[in-house]
């Protein structure tokens, strides 16, 4: 029997995680509805003034996406850790980074992509329109995978610890800040009509930087957590 290639291993991990998510559809729906409800609370809290809403809209939607990613980080490794599957996965002949990339990609498809797809609708709630809606969707498309990758480091470091929910937030939120600044900045600058290219480029740089380093850091952290 020949060993599966790295590519096949990656596909296998992604397929398994997506399949598991499809068997528990309510879990996926929960993070989507969380975003919708939190985003809808802000207009109720600060009042329905259109100018105010348009001003805070980009920031609010980005913070909401950030929190949704944070809350779903617990799902990334915990279930597999508790039933022992993760320990077996560390024994695969392919590099552990492949497994991490697969799991993070599946996590993004489950928790990040729905937010991206929903964002134009949520943007309308805040009175964004035209170009800025497109920029919002694009910035989230570039930014949410970065969030998943950075979040995976925190999830792996705090695996199986008491109070890991709060701890992962404390570790990961400071690292999310650049993504939040550039992401919300892109939308704000497109609203102000000064072009969002600079911020989007910086978001892309964040994405590439975390793609280059985060999976390795996560793999190291997983080995530390499971040794």
């Amino acid at each position, binding site marked *: 029997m020949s060993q599966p290639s790295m590519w096949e291993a990656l596909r296998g991990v992604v397929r398994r995680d997506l399949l598991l998510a499809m068997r528990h559809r309510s879990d996926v729906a929960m993070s989507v509805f969380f975003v919708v409800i939190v985003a809808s609370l802000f207009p109720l809290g600060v009042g329905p003034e259109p100018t105010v809403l348009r001003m805070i809209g980009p920031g609010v939607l980005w913070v909401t996406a950030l929190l949704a990613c944070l809350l779903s980080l617990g799902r990334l490794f915990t279930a597999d850790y508790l039933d022992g599957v993760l320990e077996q996965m560390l024994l695969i002949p392919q590099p552990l980074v492949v497994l991490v990339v697969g799991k993070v990609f599946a996590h993004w498809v489950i928790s990040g992509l729905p937010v991206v797809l929903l964002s134009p609708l949520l943007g309308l709630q805040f009175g964004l329109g035209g170009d800025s809606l497109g920029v919002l969707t694009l910035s989230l498309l570039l930014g949410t995978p970065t969030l998943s990758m950075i979040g995976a*480091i925190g999830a792996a*470091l*705090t695996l199986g*610890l*008491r*109070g890991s929910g709060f*701890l992962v937030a*404390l*570790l990961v*939120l*400071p*690292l999310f*800040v*650049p993504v939040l*600044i550039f992401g919300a900045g892109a939308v704000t600058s497109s609203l102000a009509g000064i072009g969002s290219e600079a911020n989007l480029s910086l978001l892309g740089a964040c994405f590439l*930087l975390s793609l280059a*380093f985060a999976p390795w*850091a996560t793999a*190291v*952290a997983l080995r*530390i*957590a499971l*040794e």
Partner: protein
Amino acid sequence: MSFTGINWFKYSSPQAFHPLAGRMIPWFSAAALVLIGVGLYIGFFVAPTDFQQGDAYRIIFVHVPAAWMSMFLYVIMAAWAGLGLGLNARPSFMMAQAIAPTGAMFTFLALLTGSMWGKPTWGAWWVWDARLTSELILLFQYIGIILLRASIDDLRRADRASAVFALVGVVNVPIIYFSVRWWNTLHQGASVSMTASPKMAATMVTAMLVMTLGFWMYSIAVTLARMRCVIVERERQPAWGKNASIQEVAEAR
């Protein structure tokens, strides 16, 4: 270790390092006291009054060295953490653990003195400027490292997990350092650099550098003292302190 006369790794053993640290602490403490005293004297009594900012500027003699130390100490802590991961050496992790609280203290001091300077000069305690924000994130990172270590009971995992997080956070240090150049924000650019002549009076530079040296000495002294505590805490074994009773050893386990 028979190939040379000197055993280079003698002090990498905690048992050997503990007394050495004890002997070094008084020297570094004395140097810190003298240097900080001299630096403050030059800063407060010798350096001229700034023609724009008046005497309010004098807080930079604490602010700038503290901000430098907050970044230096982070890099040094991360270097020890990386060394620990690479060589699997416990004393390196202990050093990283001992440095973290001092680094957090200097970060807090830099933010505090900065806001005390900002109120009379900018008219606000706090602005969301790139350098202030990134320095605040540095403080959060220090706190994250300390909390992550504290919430893991298994020492080996605590060491290694906080080391990985410390290394990931190094990304932030160049962002803080270059933030005033990359973003044109309220915080002024660097007045002192290695390559160009300083944009301020010579006595001001002297005071700042003397203060920085003093903060270095303070950091070393405090880190060594904390290191001694960490060593004693971790190496509670019968061979140590011969007067430890069996019950005490059993409780320690």
